[in-house]
């Protein structure tokens, strides 16, 4: 017998040996003892959590010679046959390689025959998610009402790929990831059986790396145990032999990011790359690290969702104390956003460096509440400005003395914090006049507001005289007439706005249009009467339209000139001509 890896050697053979899936094993045990076993079971869960194992134990439990029993004997012939994998009545089918409808039809044909030795005929279809759609459909009828002697057990990692019609015919059991301490307990007991002494903290490290999967944990343990002849293994050796992302480096990366130390980050990344570690794995390590930081900041270090060792929790807690949760959230957000770049980059080192450098560009100081306060302040100022412009525009001279009188009272106040500034002043004055905010405004004038206010002030100066002038004139101007035109004769308005009007003549207005098409001219002719009436009514003058430049011959001449130019261009561009020019080294005159 050749060497067997730990995961195979110590594959649980009874329900009580299965680690961390109590909710499934208890249910199945009770179902067996209560004689309520369904004819179709579906086991779903992530890799290495015990799907195939439970399926096999189930098969043994149902067919064991001691009768359907929750604890198979593992000694009778059928149990032994199942363990060694050649029982005639237990079919373990690899769903991924036998996934076509043909193979399922064959299975369906064989279902009808009675089992040869055992009580039941059991079909275990592993990786069942890989069956084709046709294969699934071919299975439906058999699955719903199989003969009494048939049991189906399906196992899959990707339950979402299985059609709903199959799911509804099965009793589904979801296997969960296995908790950190359960994995390390299991590893510890196996180490004892194998005759090794391994430090507990080191086993926790392995369990952490295994990420909820027993098989991953056992593969790693295998690798560590067989890497050297030692029988006693401590934490350092494990960290060294795992050679996966060293936790210490992750911590220095996190602190370098939080301290915004770019040089340190670049050094660390190149160090990791030189050590031959997988940078993509390292990147997911960074993501996990910042996720933990976020969780510790939000839920405290006793949160059960943290998958971490105690000493590390304390370190992270200390690290993240002085940062806002919003900032940490932003960092994690950026990491996740840039993940695809890291995954597809041809040179991972550069990509990881860039993401880390981007992270340290985020400013931790920008606090949302501060921004809101600032915006609030700004809005108040704007309001005041508008209020003053509307109400006491003429009283702007008396504004200045008022401001000066307030300013001395303001000066002892420390500038900066708007709240301490605002409260006492509001208490002083019952009416919220704009004045309290003036000092702050004078100290730090936001440029755009300042120019805006000066603009409005200057425009409010000349505005009244203009209005007066208009009142003087009395009769409406050309522009007002255009307004009337726009309302009544939009087409003519469009035409006139292109031309220019001469209003200097006392009894008539001459509108000169640059050019006019035939259509426009005819429209003008039909509207002449209306136009004249309008102009008399609004301007008190008659209107005359002259059209310039609409002469045919001029147009003709222009067109001729254009066509001649075109012909000339075509001639010079002709390959023959160009060739000739090149040949004689000539110029075209």
């Amino acid at each position, binding site marked *: *017998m*050749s*060497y*067997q*890896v730990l995961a*195979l050697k110590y594959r649980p053979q009874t329900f009580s040996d299965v680690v961390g899936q109590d909710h499934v094993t208890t249910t199945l045990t009770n179902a067996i003892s209560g004689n309520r076993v369904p004819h179709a079971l579906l086991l779903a869960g*992530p*890799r*290495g959590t015990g799907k*195939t194992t439970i399926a096999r134990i189930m098969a043994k439990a149902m067919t064991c010679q001691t009768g359907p029993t929750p604890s198979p004997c593992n000694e009778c012939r059928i149990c032994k046959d199942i363990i060694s*994998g050649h029982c005639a009545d237990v079919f373990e089918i*690899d769903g*991924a*390689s036998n996934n076509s409808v043909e193979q399922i039809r064959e299975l369906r044909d064989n279902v009808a025959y009675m089992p040869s030795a055992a009580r039941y005929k059991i079909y275990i279809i*592993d*990786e069942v998610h*890989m069956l084709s759609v046709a294969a699934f459909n071919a299975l439906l009828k058999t699955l719903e009402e199989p003969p009494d002697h048939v049991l189906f057990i399906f196992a899959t*990692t990707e339950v979402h790929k299985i059609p709903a019609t199959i799911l509804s015919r099965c009793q589904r059991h979801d296997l969960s990831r296995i908790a950190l301490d359960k994995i390390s307990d299991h590893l510890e007991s196996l180490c004892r059986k194998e005759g090794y002494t391994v430090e507990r903290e080191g086993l926790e490290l392995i369990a952490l790396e295994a990420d909820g*999967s027993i*098989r*991953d944990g056992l*593969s790693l343990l*295998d*690798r560590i145990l*067989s*890497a*050297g002849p030692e029988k006693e293994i401590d934490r350092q050796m494990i960290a060294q032999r795992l*050679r996966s992302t060293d936790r210490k480096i992750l911590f220095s990366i996190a602190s370098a990011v939080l301290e915004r130390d*770019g*040089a340190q*980050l*670049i*050094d660390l990344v*190149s160090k990791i*790359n*030189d*050590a*031959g570690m*997988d940078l*993509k*794995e390292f990147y997911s390590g960074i993501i996990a690290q910042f996720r933990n930081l976020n969780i510790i900041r939000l839920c405290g270090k006793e949160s059960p969702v943290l998958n971490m060792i105690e000493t590390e929790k304390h370190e992270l807690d200390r690290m993240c104390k002085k940062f806002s949760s919003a900032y940490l959230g932003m960092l994690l957000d950026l990491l996740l956003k840039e993940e*695809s*770049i890291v*995954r*597809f*980059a*041809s*040179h991972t*080192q*550069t*990509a990881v*460096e*860039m993401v880390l*450098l*981007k992270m340290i*560009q985020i400013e931790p100081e920008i606090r949302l509440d501060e921004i809101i306060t600032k915006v609030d302040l700004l809005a108040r100022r704007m309001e005041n400005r508008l209020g003053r412009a509307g109400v006491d525009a003429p009283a702007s001279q008396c504004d200045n003395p008022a401001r000066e009188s307030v300013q001395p009272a303001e000066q002892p106040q420390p500038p900066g914090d708007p709240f301490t500034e605002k409260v006492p002043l509001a208490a002083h004055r019952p009416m919220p006049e704009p004045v309290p905010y003036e000092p702050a405004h004078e100290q730090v004038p936001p440029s755009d507001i300042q120019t805006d206010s000066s603009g409005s002030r200057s425009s409010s100066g000349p505005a009244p005289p203009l209005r007066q002038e208009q009142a003087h004139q009395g009769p409406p101007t050309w522009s007002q007439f255009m307004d009337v035109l726009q309302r009544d004769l939009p087409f003519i308005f469009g035409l006139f706005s292109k031309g220019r009007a001469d209003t200097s003549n006392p009894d008539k207005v001459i509108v000169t249009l640059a050019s006019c098409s035939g259509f426009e001219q005819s429209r003008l002719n039909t509207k002449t009467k209306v136009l004249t009436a309008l102009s008399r009514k609004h301007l008190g003058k008659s209107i005359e339209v002259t059209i310039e430049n609409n002469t045919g011959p001029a147009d003709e001449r222009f067109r001729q000139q254009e066509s001649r130019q075109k012909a000339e261009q075509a001639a010079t561009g002709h390959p023959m001509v160009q060739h000739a020019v090149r040949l004689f080294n000539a110029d075209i005159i």
Partner: protein
Amino acid sequence: MPAASSEMNREALPSSLALSELAYIVQTGRIPNALLFYGPRGTGKKQAALFFAQACNCRTNNGRPCNLCASCKKIAAGMHPDMIFIGPAENKKMITISQIRDMGSIIASRANEAAFRMVCILNADLMTPQAQNALLKMLEEPPEHTFFILAVAQTAPLLPTILSRCRRIDFQALADHEIKKMLCTQYGLDPETAHIISGTAGSDLDQALRLSGLNKAGAPDWKMLRPWLIKEICRFPATPPHQKAFKGLDLSRRLSARPEYILDVMAVLRTVFRDFCILKYRSDKIVNLDFLSVFKDISMMHSYTRMLTWMTLFHETEKRLESNSGTRLTLDRFFLSLVVS
């Protein structure tokens, strides 16, 4: 066989750590069902697989291949009937499910003569998801005296269910400074050029040799390409705004006219933009040290976030080029957004 062994020496050299781990596995006789050889291109994974198979099957039984017995000789010559190698078929990019199924039917029967039969899947990261699923059951519980070796350059395309069934062995790539040292001592390059080449090649010795033009199938043009390209890039900030788009498009036209150089071009661009970003923190770590003063001027003229934006643009472009989009259009877009941003 001398030719083969010399080649093996050069390539297997970096992975001495992995080799000793493998030798230890053979000595203890604990041969696992599946090994995952993980390491970048050119780290001697196939040689290590052959070494491991020889060691397992060697008649002398001392944990190391003797290179004298019939078994060792057959494996070295690639004629052993029980050494199954699978890789992408000719003109194919992926390993298909039918290849895995064929292999399954072969290993279902007994081995011909080997004590340990090896199934070695080279470039296993190129297996289609279907092929990977079909492999799962075999991988977990292979027939007696059969083991699998999956050689991969990246683990991301593999299913987690595959990864959890394998014992992983890491093959370490050469660090940049080691490549630099090798280029200097063994190939007699001056340190400055060696620094630039090792930085551009990125821990890939073959690539470094190719760029330096020492390899027969080298790219001697690279030495001209790099300074020219960097000068062109550095000229961008100085051009008047209305000509920038024109300049960018012109450069894109010239680059895409020679599609065989596009990978080298992208490698150079990568180093340039990375240098811009790193300059602020570690000016001694940049790759193109000969352009240090020019880069310093440019980084004075632009904000840091802008330089990071360039880098993001570069990564996007790289991804597009890899996914078979038109070279010219992609480069046009890249340079236009570069000058506009």
